[in-house]
Each structure stands twice: as C-alpha cells, then as structure tokens.
C-alpha cells in the first residue's frame, strides 16, 4: 500500500488540470493514473483546431492543447503512471490499479479526483433495427482509425447524430477522401456547436437533415445502405417519408455518456440527468474526499471549460485535505422551467469562490428568452439571450457576497420567456 495525498483517475484534460490545480494549491503528493500509453486522453486523436481559445487565447489542435498541460506536468515533476487501469475505489479511499510492470498497485489516498471522461453511446442504446454488418462505427472510433492509425473506415458515409464529434468527422472523412452523404439528426436542432456546423458541414456542402433518423441498416456482411425517415414531434418515424441512401458506413454521433462505473461501484450519487456525480461548489461528490471534474461529471462542449473546472477540483481537494472545506450551510440549486440540470447542485457560501460559475443546459431551444436566477424569491439575474439550445452549455456567475448577506435556502435557475 502506497500513501498518496491525491490520486487522480485519468490523465486526459481533466486529470492534467486537476493535478496542476492541486500542485499550485500547495500539495505536491499527487499521482495521475492513466490507462492509455500517453497523457492527454481523447485530445490526442482530435487533430482539428479550435481548442484553447479561452485558456490560451489562441487556436490550438487537440494534441497541441494537451502538450501544453503535459509539459507543465513534467516541468512540475508531477508523477503519472501510464497504461495503468484503476479497477476499484473503496469508500475509505483505497484506490486499486493494475499495470503490466507492477501488477496490482494500491494507494491509500487522502483525496481522489475522478477524471475518467466519457464514452460514446453505442448503436444498441438506440435500438436501430436491421442487420449487424461491419461498417457501423461510433464517430470517435472512426476518428481513432483515421487520425491515429491512418486507416479509412469507409468510402461513402452517412452520419447519424449531429454532435460535435460527428460534425468534425464529416469534415475529416471528406478531407481524407470519403464521400459523406448526409448528417441525419433526430432533433429539430443540432446537438453540436454552431461553428462546427458552419465549418464542417456548410463549407463542404454536406446536407444536415434535421428531424430525421435512421430507421434501418442494410447489408449482410458490410453496410450497403441505410433507410432514413422524417420524424414527428414525438421523434417517431413518419410512414411514407422513408428514403434509402446507399453507403458503406454508418457513423454514430448520438451522445456521450460519462464513464462512472468506478464511481457507482464506490457509491457516489449520480445525477440521472447528467449521468455524472452530484457535486457541490467544490466539485466534491456525495462521498467525502472524492471529487469529480470534466466529462465524467457532465459532458462539456469545450475542453477549455473542462480544464478550468478540473483546476478548481484539484485546488479544492487540497483544501479538503487541509481541513478547510466547510461542511455545513449548503444552499441547494434548483433547476426548473427549461433548465435540464446544473453543475454544481449546491453551494456552500463558506467554500465558494468570489465568483462561482454554475453551468447548465436547457431542455429545448429557446429564442429571445431570459436566463433568470432567483435567491429564494428574489430575482438577481435576468439576462436576455438571442438563442439558448441544449447543444451549447450555458453559465451564470454567482457572487459570493450575494450569498453572505442573508440566509438563503435555495437558488433557482430557470428560463423565462418575455
């Protein structure tokens, strides 16, 4: 058993920033456990630009963004173990991991930071009928083949789902020589960022079919085509609108699921909306000393936000170890009227930063609506937005001093129409 103050599970963008956050808060007894053979996580296969505009005020590729953090980790001398898979976290913060050289490694941690990221939703979760041939890939798997291994997963491609990875892959596959026939989205709006729709679809004349879905997969050995159809308001295919599209590949970009198998096993409470842990303003989960940040907590649009959030988690893990996290006076954050969830779920004014960010997503598309925040009955934020969509994460800033003036039971976040 190795004693270690802070054990960080995952060496992607969240794990790296969390480590730096902890280090800069004054605790250097840190280890990052990463299952892949390099740090950086999924950024390593994201070779497109668009990263770092918030953090570094310049546009970087995924590997460039990752390498800045990796360099800092190395410069600071923070320990990391590669090709090391955590297989268990016990409630008393014993973390068990395995790798080829050391076999089983066990750490007694004082704080654990969950930074395992997320995985892609597979075909089965959608229950798309038809055959089960080769040629059906999740967008991230295809991205790995194309960007890391140098192989093309297909020549003519239909993409189901307009999440950001699907959009990015539409462009990538086109540039690598494939014919991307269409992107099909079941919702009446895209799940991806506006800039990706413009730069990845519009610029390449790839049609985006909103309110459509794939109703059948054809082909016995390799995909030979898909049937798509328009859907009604209940997302049910409308008979008579079916259309056959010949293709050899179906890419799925139908959502990401925070990877919380370890968290569930140790008993961390999970928010059914985000599929990630329920956390406080300090990003502490329902189990004391276990923190969470990044896509394991909720799926982010931008890695910059992941880094910021994880830095805070690292810093707070040190506060926790030093006994500086206050455990009383929680104010619940209640989401309603078009707000699907928020992170965090509660704020303790004693622990809050001077400016606390609350991030959330809407349940639907709202035009010319207001994001409102109430401290109990009092409305303190009422800000007009041209458009609010579930595909773009929103945030509001709560000032610490608002919470200190008087006792508050709940903070309400809602979307109000004019």
């Amino acid at each position, binding site marked *: 058993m190795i004693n270690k103050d802070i054990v960080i599970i995952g060496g992607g963008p969240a794990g790296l920033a969390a480590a730096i956050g902890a280090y800069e808060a004054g605790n250097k007894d840190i280890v990052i456990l990463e*299952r892949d053979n390099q740090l950086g996580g999924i950024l390593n296969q994201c070779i497109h630009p668009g990263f770092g505009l918030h953090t570094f005020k310049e546009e970087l590729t995924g590997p460039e963004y990752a390498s800045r953090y990796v360099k800092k980790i190395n410069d600071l001398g923070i320990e990391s173990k590669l*090709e090391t*898979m955590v*297989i*268990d976290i016990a409630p008393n913060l014993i973390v*068990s991991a*395995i*790798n*080829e*050289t*050391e*076999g*089983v490694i*066990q750490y007694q941690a004082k704080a654990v930071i969950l930074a395992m990221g997320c*995985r*892609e939703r*597979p*075909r*089965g*979760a959608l*229950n798309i*009928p*038809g*055959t*089960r*041939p*080769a*040629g059906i*890939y*999740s967008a*991230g*798997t295809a991205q*790995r*083949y*194309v960007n890391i*291994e*140098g*192989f*093309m*997963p*297909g*020549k003519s491609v239909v993409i189901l789902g307009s999440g950001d990875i699907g959009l990015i892959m539409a462009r990538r596959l086109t540039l*690598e*020589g*494939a014919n991307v026939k269409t992107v099909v989205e079941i919702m009446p709006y895209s799940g991806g960022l506006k800039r990706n729709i413009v730069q990845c679809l519009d610029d390449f004349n790839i049609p985006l079919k909103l309110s459509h879905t794939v*109703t*059948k*997969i054809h082909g*016995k*050995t*390799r995909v030979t085509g898909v049937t798509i159809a328009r859907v009604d308001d209940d997302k049910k*295919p409308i008979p008579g609108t079916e259309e056959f599209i010949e293709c*050899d590949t179906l890419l799925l970009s139908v959502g990401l699921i925070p990877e919380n*198998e370890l968290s*569930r096993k140790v008993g961390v409470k999970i928010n059914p909306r985000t599929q990630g842990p329920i956390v406080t303003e300090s990003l502490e989960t329902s189990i004391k000393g276990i923190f969470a940040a990044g896509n394991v907590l909720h799926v982010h649009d931008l890695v910059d936000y992941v880094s910021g959030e994880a830095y805070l988690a690292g810093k707070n893990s040190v506060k926790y170890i030093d006994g500086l996290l206050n455990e009383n006076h929680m104010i619940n954050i209640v989401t309603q009227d078009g707000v699907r969830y928020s992170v965090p779920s509660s704020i303790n004014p004693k622990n809050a930063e001077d400016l606390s960010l609350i991030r959330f997503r809407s349940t639907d598309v709202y035009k010319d609506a207001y994001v409102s925040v109430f401290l109990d009955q009092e409305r303190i934020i009422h800000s007009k937005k041209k458009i609010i969509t579930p595909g773009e994460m929103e945030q509001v800033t709560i000032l610490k001093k608002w919470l200190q003036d008087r006792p508050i039971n709940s903070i309400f976040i809602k979307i109000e129409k004019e």
Partner: protein
Amino acid sequence: MFDVVIIGAGVIGSSVARALSKYQLKVLVLEKHNDVCEETSKANSGIVHSGYDAKTGTLKAKFNLLGNRMMADFCKKYRVPYRNNGSLVLAFEDEDIQKLDELKKQGMKNGVERLRILSKDEVHEMEPNLNDSVVGALYAPTGGIVDPFELTIAQAEIANMNGVEFRFNSLVKSISKSKDHFLINFNDEIIESKTVINCAGVFSDEINNMVSEYKLHITPRKGEYCLFDKEVGHYVDKTIFQLPTAYGKGVLVTPTAENNLLIGPTAYDVIDKRDSSTSPEGLKEVLAKASQSIKKVPTGFIITAFSGLRATESKGDFVIGEAKDVPGFFNAAGIESPGLTAAPAIGDYLSSVVAQKLNADIKSNYLDNREEIIRFEPLSIEDKASLIKKNHEFGKIICRCEMVTLAEIKDAIHRPLGATTIDGVKRRTRAGAGRCQGGFCGPRVLEILSKELNKDPREITKFDQQAILLVGLDKETL
C-alpha cells in the same frame, strides 16, 4: 477417404464432432462461415430447458431431458459458463393455473423432476420484480442458463485437439452417393467419406434433400432479442417464461450465464434463411411482452438487439438418425428449441450410432478436456496480482467494460480453432460484448489480431471474409 464428414459447426455439429473424436475415426467438419457458432447457435436464449413443454414421446422431450441432466457436470468439466437458476412459467389469470397444471403433468411424464405450482405469494417472494398481475407460476428448479458460444467453442476445441479437422469457408454444394461412400462437393473440391452427418441448422433440409427421398422442409422462424447491461443483470434471478403458444415458448426474461439481462424472442416465419435482421415491430413486441412479465423493463440499459433463426421442421420434431433410404447418411435436422439443451446428448447419441456402424474403437489417447481458460475479471485482487507476475500481459486491459486483458485475447487467438475475427474474439473473451460494444477496444482488438495473425489490418474482418472493417488508407482515393 474420411470416415465421417460433419456438415455444420454450430452447437450440434460441434457436439457430434466432440463425441466422435474419442473414436479412432478420420473426421472432417465442413463449415461455410469462417468460425464455429456463426448462425443459430450464436443467437438464441441460452437456456437449459428443464423439459416440461415438449410433447411426451417426441425426440425433443427425450433429448431435452438427457441434455438437461448432463449439462451441469458437462459445463463444469469443459469450463462453459452455466448456472442452474431454475425457471418459472407465469400465470396471469386464474384459468392459466389450469394450463400450468397440464404443463406440470406433461413435464412429469417427460421425467422432469421437482416441478411445483407456486401460489401468488410464493412466486412474488421468489421473484420480487415480477409484474403485480402474476397470480401463480410453474416452478422448474432444474432449468438453467448456459453460454451458447462457449458450449459450441469448447466442444469444437476438444474435437480439434483430438484430431478432428475443421475446414471453414467451405460451403457444401452437392452430395452424391457412390456405392459405399459419399462424394461431397464444397467450394471447388470433392472429398470422399464413408458417412455424412447433417448438422446444417436452417439449411439441414437442403442437405438432406440432396441425398434422401424422404424430404425435409425447414421454415426459418425468426426470434428477435434485446440484451441489457450487466447493471440490470440481476433484475430477475430465474428464467421467466409466459405460457407457451403454438409458435414456441413465448417471450422470456432471463439473466444470462454472463450476467446480462436478456428478453425475447419473437417468433415469425420468414423466407430468407440468411435474414437475421431486427425490425422495429419485433423490438417493440419484445419490450411490450416482457413488460407483462416484469414490473419495469429497464429500456435505458439496452446494449444491443439481435435476432436468430430457429430451424423449424414441418413435422415439428427433431429429425435425428440415419436416413431410411440412404445408409451412412445421418441427420441432426430441425434442431430448434430445446436444441441447445439437447446438443451434448444429441452428439453423444449420434456418435455412438455412427461409431457402431463403422465398427470404430475408442482412442487410447483421447484428451477429455480443453486447455485452461483464465478469466481475469472475477479474480480477487491477490489472484490478479500473482497472475500478472506470472504473465505481465494480464496487466494490460484491452476491453474496459468487461475487463478483458491482452493475455486472454492472445490466448483466444492461439487456442485450437482460435479466433480470427473481431466477433470471434468477442465470443471467446467478451471483449466488445459490454456496454460500449467495442467502441474503445474495437481498434485495439483489430490491431492485436493483425499482429498475432501476421495480417494487414485491412484484412481483419468483423466476421467471415467479406465483413471488412477498414477499406483503405487515409487519402488513398484523393
């Protein structure tokens, strides 16, 4: 000249091959796919039926009971995942109890032991997640669940270790009888054999009809299923049936031998014997019928859907034994449910009949087991540590969802009749069978296959030879 040619390497062909491999015979298995367990044997309920619902006196009833009785020891010996979980047939109305009683009587006549009718209270206590509308059940404690892939693979492996030859990608085109032996034409090759055993599943009528005037007619009857995440694998403990209908045993809800939850199948006759597609109607029906049996179908945890074809013979029973008009030609045809349960017993029976006909003696050097298979995931931390010390490749996890290591995947590739495809690795190790369905491990398994088989990555398939995964290099077509 072969002594025996077995056509088909599903669970029946593999059982027959395993049982024949103990005799001093030259045996060849011809399989049109490039692996064992590629059709009906890979897409079924994985149930070890207790044997109450086959009509008394039928071959189905006889071999079901024999198979059921040998399954526990058989699976233990050959390292096949199996659990004797027991099964329930539900009654939803008081008049159903009468039908349960008839089933029970039939079961007793068939030789099924310990059948018991449970009251409403008893059945709900036994299975708390049953639908409130359940008023009673027939309890069959001898029912079980088995991994159908391993039941097939294990037997094929034993056969192969004992000298049975397997030729894959070998589609039989015609068979003719010449005096005292058979000429079998597959691909562009003709081989000779003294006897032929037809284990061709949904195609067993076509094989039979090549040589026998006693024509068989098989209608493929499709069954669609939904498979759920292990997280809800213990939603029920027993295999939950509804009352059987003319089309089969109805939609069941069951844990699998690998601790997933499985619901299905539908039962529709289809025309195309290669059509294993799923349909929106089928999946809807499965979910609707399952929701009659249990409180809540955990639809959020579905990880995949699949379908399989039952080989339903027009007379409704198994066709097992020598064709009346073709000495030396043996059938194991029309093997639908309870075929998986019956398979080891059918293999034992047919092999003894054929061996007798050929006056074959038992081998002195018969290996009655397979090489050890190590599963990393269920081991204790201490055992994991010592295993990695012995072989460091157990310390490299390839499939995170099912926690499958590099050592296990390499073993699956290099065993007798080892995996050559992504699906082959999945069925042997469970890599890719979990909740992400190979999203993460797919490219890694492909890389391992390519390295271990010394093949270009573009030649590695999902299954068979045509199911290519990678179509070229980046920018190749620009």
